[in-house]
Structure formats: C-alpha cells, structure tokens
C-alpha cells in the first residue's frame, strides 16, 4: 500500500512538478463547500447527537434551574417505547400508503397525457398543474383548512364525512399534500418523458403498439430511474410531514400535538423543553429516512437491471 502510494507520488513529481500547487488550488476551490458542509450540516448533526445523550434534570420544585446530565441512550429508549411516537409513526405510515400511490398514479397519468401527441395548449396545462406547487405550504394549509371548516367552507357540508373529524382528517391531509406536490412530480416525469428517444417510440409504433401500449411498455420503463428518484424524495417528505398537520391543528383538535414524528419532535423541544428527547427523536427520524431512501435506491437498481 505505502509503496504503491510512494511510487505514484514519485511518478507524479517527475512528470508534473506543479502538482503540490494544484493540490492547493483544489483544496481552495473545495474550501467554500467544505466549510458550508461543516457549519450547516456536520456540526449541527454532531451537536444533535451530543444533545441526544443528555437530559436537563430538574430537582425539587425546579425553580433553581436544571443540571445537564449524561443519560446514555435513555432518550432513545424513551422515544422507542413512547406510545405517542408509535402512533405518530402509524399515522405517517398510513399517510404514505395512501399519498404515494395516489400522487404517483395521478402524476404519471397527467405527465403521459401531456406527453401524448394529441394534447392542445400543452404549456397552459403544465403551468396549471404546476401552480399549486408555487403556493407556499402554510398558505395552502390555511386555504384547505378554511375549505374544510364548518360554516365557512363548502366541503364540510358537501362531503359525507367530517374532513376535520377523527375519521376524515387523514384523507384531508393526504389531499392537501397531493394537491401541492402532484404538479411538481408531473413536471419531473414530463421532462423525463421528453427525453425518451423518438426512434424508440417510432419503432414501437412500427411494431404496431398503440398509445396505451407504448406508454406502459416503453415510456414508463424508460423513465423508471426518474420515478425512483421522485419516490425517494416523496418518501423522505412523507416521513417529515409537518406543515399540513401543524396548520390543521389550529382548526381541529383531531390532529394531536404528536400526530407525526416531526410534530412529536417539535412538541418535545419547544413545548416540553425536553431537548435531549427531541434530539434523539430527530436522530432516529434521520436514520429512518436514510434507511428508507437506501431501500428505494436499491429497489431501483435491482429493477433497472
């Protein structure tokens, strides 16, 4: 190993005398990125890991302040055995199970329609589909909240169930997120579809494939990598669901303070001042996101082989 490196270095020095300077240039060019990565990603993650090992222990009446005590993995065990955290996870799983197929199905369908030769006013349609994404999440949440509210929104009376009640609130949140993110995915899929080579499509047509057959057997398989990347984004986004339920909380008590993992963390940190537990839950959520994305990427790799 060492020998190999040495000989390489020697060879380098012989052939390119300016290499050390180049190396310095490389480091200088990478420095802004490295510094930003360090300050905005690595240090905060390290701090969260550090915090998650401690707890603020009060004593007596608690009015003489807290002592920061090392508790090892106690915060992690607390989160992992907390029924509220389990409920949050269950909610988010249900949400993802409904949201992801509905949104992906819809987005693929619309993208294929936009991509088909027969659509007129393509620009206007794609803009229209994309518009909800341009609405800030909190504003969208408020708009839907009002639409769902009794007395002021039409949906409460039009729907057979109460969109803010315990039976309806999950579908209401799925609807909000789907409305907001569908257009975004349509544009991603549509762009990928544009890149499908014409020759392949022409060959399919020459072989006698109709529009639907072409879509199912040519177009969708060819944009599969894109779909998987979008799936990864959506999976991570679902795990971190926060804005929609947070806004709906002001409209209904059905969305509890720990309804999703992100709300659970928010509640732990900013209502209970239990920073250690919040940090532990954040680390666990980040781990879950990483594992799920790895799983999705692996699925994608296997499928495309």
């Amino acid at each position, binding site marked *: 190993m060492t020998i190999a490196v040495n000989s390489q270095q020697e060879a380098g020095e012989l052939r390119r005398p300016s290499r050390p300077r180049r190396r310095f240039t490389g480091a200088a060019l990478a420095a802004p990125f490295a510094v930003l990565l360090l300050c905005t990603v690595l240090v905060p993650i390290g701090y969260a890991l550090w915090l998650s090992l401690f707890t603020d222990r009060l004593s007596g009446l608690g009015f003489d302040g807290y002592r920061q005590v090392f508790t090892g993995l106690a915060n992690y065990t607390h989160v992992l055995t907390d029924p509220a955290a389990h409920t949050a996870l269950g909610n988010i799983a249900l949400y993802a199970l409904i949201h992801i197929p509905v949104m992906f199905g819809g987005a693929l369908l619309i993208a294929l329609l936009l991509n088909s030769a027969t659509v007129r006013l393509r620009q206007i349609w794609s803009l229209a589909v994309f518009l909800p994404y341009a609405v800030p999440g909190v504003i969208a949440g408020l708009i839907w909240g009002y639409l769902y*509210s009794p007395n002021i929104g039409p949906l409460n009376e039009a729907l057979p169930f109460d969109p803010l009640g315990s039976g309806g609130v999950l579908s209401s949140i799925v609807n909000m997120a789907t409305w907001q993110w569908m257009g975004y995915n349509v544009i991603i899929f549509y762009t990928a579809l544009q890149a499908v080579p014409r020759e392949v499509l022409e060959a399919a047509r020459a072989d006698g494939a109709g529009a639907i057959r072409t879509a199912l057997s040519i177009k969708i398989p060819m944009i599969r990598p894109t779909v998987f990347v979008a799936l990864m984004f959506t999976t991570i986004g679902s795990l971190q669901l926060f804005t929609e339920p947070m806004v709906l909380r002001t409209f209904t008590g059905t969305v509890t303070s720990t309804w999703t993992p992100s709300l659970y963390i928010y509640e732990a940190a900013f209502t209970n001042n239990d920073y250690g537990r919040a940090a532990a839950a954040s680390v666990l959520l980040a781990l879950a996101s990483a594992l799920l994305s790895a799983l999705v990427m692996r699925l994608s790799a296997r499928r495309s082989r």
Partner: protein
Amino acid sequence: MVFGTSSDAGGGSSRTLRSRRSLLRAASGLGVAALAGGTLTGCSQSSSGATRVRLWSWLTGMDQYVAAFNASQRDVHVELSVIAAGTSGGYAQQTNAIRAHNAPDILHTEYQALPQIVTTGGLRDLTDDVADLADGFLPAAWRSVRPDGRTWAVPMDFCPMAFFHRKDLFDKAGVQVPRTWEEFAEAAAAVRRTDPRARITTFPLNDGAFFAGMAWQAGDPWWRVAGDSWQVGIDTKGTMGMAGYWQDLVSSGKVAHTPTADQSWISSLHQGRLWGMLGATWGVGVMKRSLPTAKGKWAVTTLPTWGDKAVNGAFGGSAFAVAAQSEVPEAALTFLRWLSTDPAVPRIGAKVTFPSPAYLPSRKVAREAYKNEFFAGEPLFDVFDRAATRVPDWTWGPTSLSVFSSIADVLAPVPTGGTTIPRALHTLQSSTVATMRERGLAVRNGGRA
C-alpha cells in the same frame, strides 16, 4: 443609504463605475459596522448615553408604551422586538434564547407559563427588587408571579374570565342571562329551543388554557407547592364536577365544542349561531374587531357560578421577567415599574385595546380613560373589577404548557364519544405526574394531602 443612491443612479458607464465603487464602500462599511456592533454588544451604553434595554414581547400596544417611555426620560432606552404570541412560538423563542445565552433583558410571559420558564433557570429573582409593590397589585396577579414565595416577574395586566352574550337575542327570546351553571344549562336548552341551529356558546375542547381557567373557578388548584415538592391534583373533586357538567352539555349537543376566535367561530357569531362566548377581558377587543357592526348587541357579565359561591376563573394576562443574564437589570426594572404602575400606560392602552391592569391604581385610570361604545348592559369595568376580586388561589405548574397541549390531545376524541372529559382527566393526571417525575421534579400525586 449608500445602497439607495447607487441603485437609484443607474445608467452611464461612469455612473455604473461610481455606483459599483460606492457599493464596495458600502459593503466594507457594513463590515466595519458589523465589527463595531460585535464589540459594542458587550457594552450596553448607546451613543446618547442612555442604557439600552432589549425587550421581547407580543403585547398589543407595546410599541406605543415603549415609545412613550423612551420619550419620557433619557436614562433608559428600550428596544422592542415583537415576537410571536406565547404558544405560537414566543415561548419557544425565549427559552431557546435563554439556552443560547443571548436572551433579551426583558422577557414576556403569561402567568400560566411563568413557572415553566422559571425552570430554565434563565430568570432573575426579583423578590427584593419589587418587594415594595406587593400591596399594589390584584392579589391573584401578585400570587401568580410568586409560585414559591420568590417573585419571578412583574405583573402587567390580568384577565379574569367573563360570559359575553348577545343581550338582544336573550331579551327577545325571553331567556334569562344565567347567574349559576345550573341556570346556564337551562339557558343552553332554551337557546336551542328558540333556534335549533344556535347554541349558547362553544366549549372549545382544543384550548388547554381555557379549560384550566374553567377549572380554576371550580376551586381545586391543579398544582400546589407543598414544601419542596409539587402536589398535583388535576382529577380532583372540583375539576371533575366541572368536567362532568360540560361532558353532559357537549354530548347532549347543548353547546358547541369547536375552537373560539377562529374564522369559523367569527362566521357563527355573524350568523347568530352562537349567542355567547366564555372568554376573558381580551374578549372585548376580539368582539369589537370581529363584529364591528354588532354595536349594542353584546353585553358582558361575570362567569356563572357553582351554586352560590361567588368565584370567578381567570384566563391569561401578561407579566414581564428580567433575564438572569441581563447586564442591566436596574434599567430593565425601571422600565417594568413604569410599564406596570405608571398612569400613562392605561391611558395609552385605552386607545389601542381594552386595558385590564394588574396594578390597582391603574385600574381606576383605565376605567376613566376607556370609552365603551360597543357593549350594552352593565359597565365593563364594574363587571371585570368584580370578576377580578373573585379569583381564588391558584398555582400554575412547571410543565403547564405541555399540560395545555396534552389537554387538547386527550379531549380530541370527546365529540365522537371516544372518551369522556372526566375519563380524559384521569389520563391527564397520570401523564402530568409521570412527565414531572421524569424531569426530576419532586411530585406528590393527588389533591389535598
């Protein structure tokens, strides 16, 4: 300034050059200013010689109080940063700042949040600083800033609860405005008989501070300080009686259970579908803002009582604390004394809001200064003065804010019959005790020893 001129100039190559140069100069100037600012923060003297005091608050009218204070003297200069209201982010911001050692000199806290903020260790013990003010305040407000006998904040205003109601509709329907909760239940039924779509009020199940205010009236404080430990009794007799009463009204549909003060609620008021509101002094402002055309239709009275015990709950009210980290506590206290006791404050308050000072002499000033043109019936200050003196003993706990959010959570399944209010309270009692013990606090489970 320099940025403004350079961008205004535009056009012409020499101009562009000059403007670029001035931009550069401005940028370097900014850098220097930032450096200077950095070195100055350690020192609290501003250039004019006045001591600079930083204040975070979300109180309505605070900008005007601060302006008046700064204009009235030259020794202390208060700098106000308006932050989000308490549970909407203000408390999080303040406790985070305490943790990060950059808290402002003065922090805003409502009574119900004070003990929890004290547990951050970030507040200055004001016991000796303001001992002379002890007799000046409403007893309930003064007790609220002294949970353990030490004074942690200076009371500013105090919000006793009240029953706001549509006097015109009650009169027209011949329904008596209820004086007791027994009469209230009958009135609730009568309102629904008169108009099947109308309800006497909503009992907002998502509002923990409101629920606690109702429990306050019922007479069994949820927390007590017993020596060096907390005695926690949420599911004790008084609260359970209150809970059972409202459970009946909610499940029989005699009252609504939706949130107060959101758009849907305002719309119900406009349509005459809610004849009343259980609120507090701040309701005066809310009503006037939400229903500008309903002049003369509404009246206010003290909360109905349990039997003939003349007792009233409270719901909100602000106090201000000095950060332990503050390097200018004297200057901060100079402002706080002025804010809580100077007659100028209720006079300004009377113009921008409905003032309900915690300082007794200021209540007289407020009464004279405030012009009521909206509410019919008994004069507002008669009602609220009576209510304020009827507020009994109560101590807020060191985890009140978590408890409020738990209340909303445990009461959420009540409308669909998933639980009952009394059952939810047993859950709340055990989770509150468990959370407090987990934090290391000394806790005795149950009400009176």
